[in-house]
């Protein structure tokens, strides 16, 4: 096989590789609406879980279909991140136009089932406003859900009072009415921008 022939084939292959890479990259940035949050359409699977709500009932993702959902992992003894995020989400949701108020749900998933009983969860979510669903479950179920959304949580050492820290995701996952993963919100985005994204998403699907 001559060197020239190999060279020709080599460059043909390289050209093909470049075309494929460009197509791949172009496919990644196919946006119709410019959301403030990070568009995760196609990156993450649709919402699916099997947990218990703050009334102690078994629930699945299907029970909340038809609504736009904001999912957040946390725990009720959380000193700073969770309360701040919950307030931000509540501000974002309460700023929605009246007709969309009941179209958006916040799913607060507690990853600390040892301390967060359904009653405790109920008190916590009611404190932060309406249309918030408290969810928890067995640690294995929570691990499954966290893994599905490429996140994790961990428990720190207990102090003399039996309190311990819980490391968890600070991201908010937004799912559309069909349950497809749509946006990933960093908590520092702010209520106003989250509100704009929620409106865009709720109106798009209605």
């Amino acid at each position: 096989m001559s060197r020239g022939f190999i060279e020709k084939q080599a460059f043909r292959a390289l050209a093909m590789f470049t075309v494929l890479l460009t197509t791949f990259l172009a496919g990644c940035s196919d946006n119709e609406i410019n959301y403030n949050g990070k568009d995760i359409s196609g990156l993450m699977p649709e919402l699916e879980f099997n947990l218990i709500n703050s009334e102690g009932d078994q629930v699945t993702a299907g029970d909340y279909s038809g609504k736009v959902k904001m999912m957040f992992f946390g725990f009720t003894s959380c000193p700073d991140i969770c309360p701040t995020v919950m307030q931000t989400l509540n501000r974002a949701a309460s700023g929605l136009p009246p007709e969309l108020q009941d179209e958006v749900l916040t799913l607060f998933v507690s990853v600390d089932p040892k301390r967060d009983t359904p009653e405790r969860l109920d008190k916590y979510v009611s404190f932060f406003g309406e249309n918030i669903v408290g969810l928890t479950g067995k640690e294995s179920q929570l691990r499954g859900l966290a893994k599905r959304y490429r996140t994790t949580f961990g428990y720190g050492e207990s102090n003399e009072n039996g309190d311990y820290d819980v490391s968890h995701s600070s991201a908010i996952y937004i799912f559309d009415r069909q349950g497809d993963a749509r946006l990933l919100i960093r908590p520092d985005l702010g209520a106003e921008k989250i509100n704009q994204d929620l409106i865009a998403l709720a109106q798009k699907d209605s």
Partner: protein
Amino acid sequence: MSLLGYLLPYDFSPLTILSYMLVLGFYGVGLLRMPDEDRPGALRIFAFVLGVMACYGVMQTRFDYYAQYMFFVHRGQHLILHHIGPILIALSNPSPIMRFWYAKISPGLRNTLRPVGWIYQALQYPLIALILFVGLIYFWLWPSIHFDAMLSRDLYWIMNWSMLLDGLLFWWLIFDPRPPAITSSLGYGKRMLILAAAGVLQMLLGAWIVFSREMVYDVYEVCGRAWPLDPEVDQLLGGMLTYIPPAMMSVLGILLILRRAMHEDGKYSKSSKQSKEPVQ
């Protein structure tokens, strides 16, 4: 967690397990069936199995969990997939086993596989190999691409497999055991140049991560860490793993090539060069 918990895959990938089983299976059966005089020694077999198992270990054990949720463990994972594992495999020189299996392929199948050979030849052009090797590191560490790769299961697997396959290609080019004086393998000078360039380019990236004062890779912040570790410490450790060990691998590689070059110096006269082999 039990020992079994640490050894079992965090994210079970049948395709990955099958690939490793096939590689080890073909290697093992090849070893048993090949003529005694061609069979590699115990040290080479050990190096090969160690390299393969190291790559398997970081992909299909609990290690992968920590690699997904800690930046510095992720860098350690890529150090093994892109450097240490492939280096061990390339240095073990499995070519006698490859030759043994190649001889068993029917001519018809060899013809069908020809395009694979062309792609291989293209990817093994020194400049393309270098761009691919360093480019992949830069590509997957590009903050927005890294973010997506850590969020998407599919992209994550593509990332890890692309690093492993490219690592194998690159280090095979570098440590190709055939002497360049009498075969078409890459000349020692070019090999050393590629290694030096790869080392410098990786050091630039590593140094940039180490000396970044703000969070460059915040996906671990967003998605939660495996345990509560200061994000800056995580990024610093990850940066150092990108900065120092790969540079050391380049130096080590250059020394090994230099040793081989000195060993072969004057061993092959120009007249013994096979004319049918294309010269690089």
